[in-house]
């Protein structure tokens, strides 16, 4: 397994798309969480200037993960499996000896490891941005507790993992990348976005939205210090509730990951590679 994971890490590490996605995601995360709102009017931010200082690092950064970060993780998941169909490299891998299940597992572990970078890099960049702002404002640098940071980063990884798993499933289902990314973004933007917006006026939709990735991702973020006002005004990723409790969010996200990956694994194992 270790050898298989090492092979998959080489594939992901040397792929330009991995670094491009990581770079854009880190840049966007900082740009929309710090640069733009601070430059416009820091005092008008939901938590005022404190939102941009190191003490709010956890809550400020995780607000971007349930939607924007999710889209990047979705693309990464699609690339991890969908591209293999496009290049026909699955065929080359399958005849090397590892079982399909073991190969799939190694791809998932490698993807999970790469997603750690998709959490750590934005957090590191956010830390730098918050220090710069604190210096400009002459504010003291006070960090959140290590425990809060750890929990927030773990939650951020979980949120990315569920979107990555959806990307893996779509990549396997469509045996490619373009359609999979299209469907994934359509789901994230239109289905979850619009139905969540309608749910505020159509009661019957409310139970449905409570199992959406968006609702559960934001609910988890809320438990770690994210601002309701920021989430409600998060552009295409906005969400106005209803929120669920963090335990339910953890269960729904965990079950979603399991469901997506089991379905993808079954398809990968059972389908002919013709």
């Amino acid at each position, binding site marked *: 397994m270790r*050898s*298989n994971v*090492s*092979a*998959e890490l*080489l*594939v992901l590490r*040397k*792929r*330009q798309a991995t670094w491009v996605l990581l770079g854009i995601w880190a840049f966007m995360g900082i740009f929309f969480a710090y640069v733009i709102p601070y430059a416009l009017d820091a005092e008008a931010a939901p938590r005022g200037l404190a939102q941009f200082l190191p003490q709010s690092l956890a809550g400020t950064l995780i607000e971007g993960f349930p939607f924007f970060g999710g889209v990047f993780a979705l693309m990464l998941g699609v690339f991890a499996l969908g591209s293999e169909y496009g*290049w*026909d*490299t699955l*065929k*080359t*891998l*399958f*005849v*090397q*000896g*590892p*079982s399909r299940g*073991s*190969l799939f597992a*190694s791809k998932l572990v490698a993807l999970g490891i790469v997603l750690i970078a998709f959490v750590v890099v934005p957090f590191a960049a956010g830390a730098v941005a918050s220090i710069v702002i604190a210096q400009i404002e002459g504010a003291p640098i006070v960090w959140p507790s290590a425990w809060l940071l750890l929990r927030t980063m773990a939650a951020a990884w979980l949120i990315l993992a569920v979107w990555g798993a959806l990307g893996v499933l779509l990549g396997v289902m469509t045996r490619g990348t373009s359609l999979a990314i299209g469907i994934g973004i359509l789901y994230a933007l239109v289905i979850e976005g619009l139905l969540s917006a309608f749910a505020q006026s159509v009661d019957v939709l409310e139970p449905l939205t409570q199992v959406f990735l968006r609702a559960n991702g934001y609910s988890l973020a809320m438990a770690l210090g994210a601002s309701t006002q920021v989430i409600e005004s998060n552009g295409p990723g906005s969400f106005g509730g209803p929120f669920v409790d963090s335990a339910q969010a953890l269960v729904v996200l965990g079950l979603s990951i399991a469901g997506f990956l089991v379905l993808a694994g079954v398809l990968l194992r059972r389908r*002919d*590679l*013709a």
Partner: protein
Amino acid sequence: MTMPRSTHDEHELVISTQALTKRYGDTIVAVDELALRVRRGEVYGFLGPNGAGKTTTLRMLVGLVRPTSGNATVLGAPPGAPEGLSRIGAMIEAPAFYPYLSGRDNLRVLARHARIDVGAQVERVLGQVGLGSRASDRTATYSMGMKQRLGVAAALLKDPELLILDEPTNGLDPAGMAEMRAFIRSLADGGRTVLLSSHLMGEIEQVSDRVGVIRDGRFVAEGTVGELRGRAGLRVRAEPPAQAAHLLAAMPEVEAVGGQNGLLEVVVDTAHAAAINRTLVHAGVAVSEIYAQTASLEDVFLELTATDGGAGS
């Protein structure tokens, strides 16, 4: 022509299929109750026109495609089982690699998945296929022939007992094709079993110990190249032909005489050409032509794979 070096013993079969069938929907039968038997140490040429079912058969043998019915054993294991695949090197259809990785890195990925010594094996197979100087270049920059060589290198990574190669000379120039054929032959001479699929008769003829010809998913012939060609004979043009035919038919060494338009087709060992010529001349028959003729594998192939509407394509 080479001859098989092993006896037909069930225990020596490295590939054995029984009634192997693959259907797509209700109407398309890609492979139809195929009984393929490949013996240890031989180069088995799997010959057939495009669409005959060769690649589907190979895909079933390595577990990429599940048969609709029938069964197969490859190196004593079911197709696609890790214990079998670890001893098989395969290149099925066009070789496929990560375009952004170098040839060397592609092989490293495959070697890690196969859990073999990455460094030594990778360099060894790169050298074997003559790709050492371009191994650091991205495979997106490779020509078809170079990808083909890399595909063979990938198949050799595990130092396999059985090689399954699907059209390995595709995209190679004539010198490269000759080199590849010699290489494949040397692999078999080194004790490996090779299942070589191709639609190139010359390739199969020069390399294979035995040949199976497939059409519409079914075997239409199997045997050594010599057996498929049939026995050699003589073509004789003589005047008057009727007298010549009568004289030839009376010779004990002649098995049959046929022909038309003055050209007689004589089924006989070609070593008797001089005796036949002498007999006819002594009897006053004017012999203007006498020559040996053996059917080429291509003739046999075209005859075997001809459909009602003409030759198979």
